């Protein structure tokens, strides 16, 4: 790493003020697992780092009524170890479990994953399915951006330069005693330390009598420039009986809204086929978590 000024502000206000003063020469750093790799590759392109690690405003996981407030600086290890998250938001624990390695999960943050806005970011599809809301702070005040509005292109988020993501607000899918569960699956060449060839998350809500799927959210990554909600699959599932058949129909509907491409890591046709497989498997796992056993083909 070249000569770089390193700031460790003691408060969010101080961090925002520093960034305002230093402008484009400064980058925020949370866990640094993206920033420091870019520095190693000499692609950092900044002269100053503003560390967000010490800021208590970005830490912790709290419940406020039916809303979970997930601090942006929460590490993936903390997500994984949180018993409340694994009970109520298993779709997010699934993603944390398959990210990087222990060494990386111990420092990488959820906020950093969102702000990096990589098409393969593993927490992004779960957060899309959970309809999380990003809370951004700037010297001018705070604003909220829905996850579905957060990604503009590869590695390009809707946050403005100088904004800090403080936390994500997630309305508990199980609020009001609703039967809801989700699951996330990632396809990669290696179990650890590998980016997704594709990844997919599903969150399902059952009708009060349990006889049908009242609401469904499906999102996939590496199927286009940004992670995407898959509206056709959601429509195919909504109102359907919670069966393997419904999952198969949802899988068949996939692909139209995607822009799947060949890449040096994977051919497009394989991504497309596997998207259908992951959709059925993740759906089956979500239903299993609701106590409904389904057998899916493939």
């Amino acid at each position, binding site marked *: 790493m070249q*000569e770089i*000024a390193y700031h*460790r502000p003691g408060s969010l206000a101080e961090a925002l003020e520093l960034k305002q003063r230093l402008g484009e020469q400064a980058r925020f750093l949370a866990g640094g697992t993206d920033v420091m790799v870019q520095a*190693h590759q000499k692609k950092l392109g900044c002269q100053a780092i503003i*560390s967000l690690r010490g800021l208590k405003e970005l830490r912790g996981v709290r419940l406020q009524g039916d809303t979970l407030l997930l601090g942006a600086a929460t590490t993936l*290890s903390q997500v994984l170890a949180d018993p409340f998250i694994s009970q109520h938001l298993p779709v997010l624990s699934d993603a944390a479990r398959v990210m990087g390695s222990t*060494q*990386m999960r111990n420092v990488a943050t959820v906020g950093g994953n969102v702000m990096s806005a990589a098409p393969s970011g593993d927490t992004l599809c779960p957060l899309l399915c959970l309809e999380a809301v990003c809370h951004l702070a700037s010297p001018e005040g705070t604003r909220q951006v829905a996850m579905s509005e957060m990604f503009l292109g590869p590695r390009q988020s809707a946050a403005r330069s100088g904004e800090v993501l403080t936390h994500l607000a997630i309305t508990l899918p199980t609020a009001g005693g609703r039967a809801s569960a989700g699951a996330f699956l990632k396809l990669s060449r290696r179990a*650890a330390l590998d980016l997704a060839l594709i990844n997919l998350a599903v969150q399902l809500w059952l009708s009060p009598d349990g006889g049908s799927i009242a609401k469904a959210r499906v999102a996939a990554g590496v199927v286009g420039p940004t992670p995407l909600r898959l509206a056709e699959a959601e429509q195919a599932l909504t109102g359907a009986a919670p069966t393997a058949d419904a999952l198969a129909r949802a899988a068949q509907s996939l692909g139209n809204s995607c822009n799947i491409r060949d890449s040096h890591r994977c051919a497009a046709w394989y991504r497309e086929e596997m998207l259908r497989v992951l959709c059925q498997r993740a759906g089956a796992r979500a239903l299993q978590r609701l106590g409904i056993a389904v057998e899916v083909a493939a």
Partner: protein
Amino acid sequence: MKRDMEFMLNGQPVRVEARGGQTLLQLLRDELGLKGTKEGCGAGECGACTVVVDGQALASCIYPALEVEGASVTTIEGLAAPDGSLHPLQEAFVKHGAVQCGFCTPGQIMSAKALLDANPHPGEDEIRSALEGNLCRCTGYHQIVEAVKAAAEEKP
């Protein structure tokens, strides 16, 4: 930009001048002369540079040096007793043939140390998951897992 900072290194307080752009790995090897921690990929992907900071295994090659201010850092040099007798994990690695070329060994042992400190009796799955970020080109991993199991069983 340079800054004086203090932290605990292998149980001893140290005071060093760290640079803004420096990684913890560079600080340990180049400033403090602790060459036990290795650099493989330099990008977080191989685990050769693993050290333990406040109980957590992490990749020192992508960890900013200035972030350890006030923290407690343990490296491979901190494991043997002052009289030179090896740590049970080191003994177990030797005994089980878990060391071949040895380049990955400090990182493997530090990952295992963080695991056993937090969870003295891990199952095989937990061992494999704790070590998933440590690549080894020689052993085929089996001996490493056996060594960690053996060291865990030895602990009271």
